C-alpha cells in the first residue's frame, strides 16, 4: 500500500476520532438542532408547523400504493443469482408493467404506469461484468420497453422496434453489466415523454469489481454490495422525480422517490459515525435540470459514478440534467446531532415538494 495514503488516512482517522470524542463531551442541549419538547413551541404556546407551514398536508397511504419511499432508499434488488458455465455470475430479474393509480402526494391520485407496481421501479443492483437477464412482461394496454443506460448492443437497446413488449407480450433483455456506476433504466416507447413522466424509470447500479481495479481496491470494495467494507457505509438511493398531474407539461409535485416532503416529515436517520453514500438520479420531466444541495456539509461527487476518484471535491450543490446521475459521499462525523436539510436548490422545486432532511443520530 502507498505509504503516503496510509499516513493521510491515519491523520484523518485521528482527527475524526478526536472530533467524535470532543462532541461526546458536550451536553446534548448544546445541539440546537436536536428537537426537544421545549423548542417545538413558540413563546405564545402555539406549535410551529414544519418549515413554517410550507408543506403538503397529510400523509400518503403507502400500503394502498404498495410501496414506501423510505424503503426505496435501501431496497436493492440483486436478482436470482447463479453461475454460468463460463464462470460468470448470472443475475435474473423479472419486471412487469402495472398501469395503476398511485397517490403521488397526500390525497392526490395520479394514473401512473409502473415497473413492478412502484415508482421509481425496482433498484437493480449488480456487479461489473455480471450477465444480466431480465424477463419483461407487459400486461398493460400500451407498448412498453426497458431501455438500460450502460454499454450494450443495438439489439438490447429497448427502443421501439428493438425488444419492445406489446400488450400481453413478454421480452427478455440480456447483456453484460458495464461500465460500473450509477445508472438508470426507463421506458423508451413512444410517446417518450408521456411514458417517462407517468413513472416508468428506475435505478440500475453496477458495483465495481474490485479485482479489476487493483489501484483503487479499497474504494471499489466499499462500493461492492455485500462486502464488509460496504457494510460500513450508509447507502441510499434517491431518484429525483416530479409529476404533472393536470397534463399541462408543467410539474405540480417534485420529490425524491416520488412522495413530496416525505423525508421532511420523516427525516432519514443516519448514524453520525458512519459515512453516507447517495446514489442520485434525475428523471425529472419538463424541467431541464434538477439539483441537490446539502445543508451544513460538503460532499465529494462522482459524476455517473463511473470513476473511483471524485470528479468534484468538496461541493455542497450539484446539478443534473435529465437522466444525469452520480454518487455523493459525505460524513457528519464531526457534526452536531440534529436535523440537516437537503433539497433542490431551485426554490420552485423545494417549495413544491423536493425538500428533505437527514436526522443525524449518535
Amino acid at each position, binding site marked *: 500500500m502507498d505509504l503516503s495514503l496510509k499516513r493521510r488516512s491515519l491523520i484523518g482517522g485521528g482527527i475524526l476520532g478526536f472530533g467524535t470524542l470532543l462532541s461526546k463531551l458536550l451536553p446534548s442541549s448544546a445541539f440546537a438542532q436536536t428537537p426537544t419538547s421545549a423548542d417545538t413551541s413558540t413563546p405564545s404556546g402555539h406549535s410551529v408547523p414544519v418549515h413554517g407551514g*410550507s408543506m*403538503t398536508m397529510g400523509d400518503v397511504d403507502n400500503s394502498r400504493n404498495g410501496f414506501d419511499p423510505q424503503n426505496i432508499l435501501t431496497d436493492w434488488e440483486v436478482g436470482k443469482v447463479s453461475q454460468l458455465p463460463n464462470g460468470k455470475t448470472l443475475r435474473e430479474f423479472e419486471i412487469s408493467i402495472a398501469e395503476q393509480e398511485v397517490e403521488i402526494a397526500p390525497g392526490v391520485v395520479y394514473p401512473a404506469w409502473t415497473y413492478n407496481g412502484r415508482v421509481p421501479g425496482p433498484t437493480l443492483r449488480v456487479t461489473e461484468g455480471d450477465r444480466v437477464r431480465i424477463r419483461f412482461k407487459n400486461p398493460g394496454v400500451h407498448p412498453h420497453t426497458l431501455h438500460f443506460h450502460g454499454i450494450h448492443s443495438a439489439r438490447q437497446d429497448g427502443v421501439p422496434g428493438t425488444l419492445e413488449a406489446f400488450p400481453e407480450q413478454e421480452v427478455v433483455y440480456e447483456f453484460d453489466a458495464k461500465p460500473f456506476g450509477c445508472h438508470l433504466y426507463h421506458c423508451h416507447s413512444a410517446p417518450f415523454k408521456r411514458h417517462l413522466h407517468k413513472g416508468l424509470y428506475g435505478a440500475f447500479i453496477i458495483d465495481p469489481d474490485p479485482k479489476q481495479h487493483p489501484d483503487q481496491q479499497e474504494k471499489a470494495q466499499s462500493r461492492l454490495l455485500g462486502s464488509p467494507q460496504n457494510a460500513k457505509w450508509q447507502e441510499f438511493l434517491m431518484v429525483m422525480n416530479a409529476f404533472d*398531474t393536470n397534463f399541462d407539461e408543467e410539474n405540480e409535485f417534485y420529490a425524491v422517490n416520488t412522495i413530496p416532503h416525505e423525508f421532511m416529515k420523516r427525516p432519514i436517520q443516519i448514524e453520525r459515525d458512519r459515512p453516507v453514500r447517495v446514489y442520485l438520479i434525475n428523471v425529472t420531466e419538463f424541467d431541464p435540470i434538477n439539483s441537490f444541495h446539502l445543508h451544513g456539509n460538503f460532499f465529494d461527487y462522482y459524476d455517473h459514478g463511473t470513476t473511483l476518484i471524485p470528479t468534484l471535491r468538496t461541493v455542497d450543490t450539484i446539478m443534473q440534467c435529465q437522466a444525469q446521475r452520480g454518487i455523493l459521499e459525505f460524513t457528519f462525523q464531526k457534526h452536531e446531532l440534529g436535523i440537516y436539510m437537503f433539497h433542490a436548490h431551485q426554490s420552485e422545486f423545494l417549495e413544491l415538494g423536493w425538500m428533505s432532511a437527514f436526522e443525524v443520530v449518535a
Partner: protein
Amino acid sequence: MRKTLLWIILPLVALALAIGVFLSSNPLEPLGVSAPPIEKLTVERTLLGDQGISLLVRTSGSEPMQIAQIQVDGAYWQFTQTPPGELPRLQTAWIKLPYPWVRDEAHHIRFITDTGIGFDHEIAVAVPTPQFSLIRILAYALLGLYIGVMPVTLGMLFYPALKQLGGQGMKFILALTVGMLAFLLVDTLEEGLELATKSASAFSASALVWLVAITSFLAIFAIGRQGGKSPEGKALASYLALGIGWHNLGEGLAVGTAFAAGEAALGSLLVVGFTLHNITEGIGIAAPLVDARPKFTTFLSLIALAGLPAVIGTWIGAFTFSPHWAAVFLGIGVGAILQVMVEVGAYLIRTAHRSGSNWLSTVSLIGFSLGLAIMYGTALLVNF
C-alpha cells in the same frame, strides 16, 4: 275532476320512472363513455388578517370534490378546511392558510384537487380585510353618501332652473335623461355580466342577470301602470329615483369591493368619478317634477331613494360580498333602469305632443346624445 288529477299525476310518475331507469341502468355504457368528474372551484371571498389568508370557496363540479393540497405563491402550504373532507356540489367551505402574506404585494393561490387539477385565485393587492366595526361602517357609509346622495342632491339644485324651461328645453332635458339612462343600462348590464363570470358556474349567473332584468322590468312596469296609464310627475320621479338607486347600489358595490380588496387608489378614483358621473342623475329625477309643485320632503325622499342604495352597496361590497348575489342585484338594476327609460320616453313623447312637435327632433337628438356623452365622459374617470 279526479280524471284530470290522474292525468296530471300519471305523466309525472312516468317521468320519475324514466329518470330512475336512466340512472340505474347506465345507458351510456355501450357508448364506451367513462365521464371523468368535471371539477369547478370558485373563490367567493378573500380575507386577509393576522392569522393569514382565509378563503370562502364554493364547489360546482359534477360530483363531490376534494381539495387535496394548496399552493400559495408556488409553495405547498398547510391549511385547515371547515367543513373538512369531500365537498358536495355547490357546498361552500372556509380555507384558512397561516401564510405570512406581504402587504401591498400580489399573492397567487392554487387549489389542487384529488385528481390533480388546479384552480387558481389571485390576490392582486394584499391589505388587511376591513373588520366589521362601527367606525368602518360609518366610513363606508360616508363613501356611499359621496357617490350617491351628494351628486343626486347637487343635480336636484337645477330644479328652479328647469322650471324656467319652455317646451323645447323640457324636451331637451328629458332626452338628456333618456340618453343618460341608456348609458347606465348598458353599464349596469356589463357590470352584472362581468360579476356573473366570477361566480360559481352552476349558478349560470349570466343567464340569471338577463332573466332577473327582464322579470324585474316587467314587474316594475306593471306596478307603475297599475292606474292604467303611465306614471307622471311625482310617480315618474320616484321610479326614476328607484332605477337610479339600483344602479347606485352597483356603484357602491364597486367602491366597497375595491377598498376591501386593497385597491385604495382605484377606490378613491371611483368615488370621485362616480360623484361627477351622478350629478346628471339628480337633474333627470327632477325633470318630471317641473309641472308639479313638490314638497321639500318629496325631494328628500327622492334623494334618499336614489342615493342611499350606494351606501348599502359599499357595505355589501366591503363586508359580505358574493359575486352571484351582486350579479342578481345588478340584474334588478337593469330591469329598473329599462322601466324608467320606457316611462321617461313615453313622457317625452307626450310632452312633445302637447307642445305640438315631434318626439324625435334635433333638440331631443342632441339631448339624448349629450346624455350619453356626459356619462361616457365621466365614466372615463372610473373605467380602467
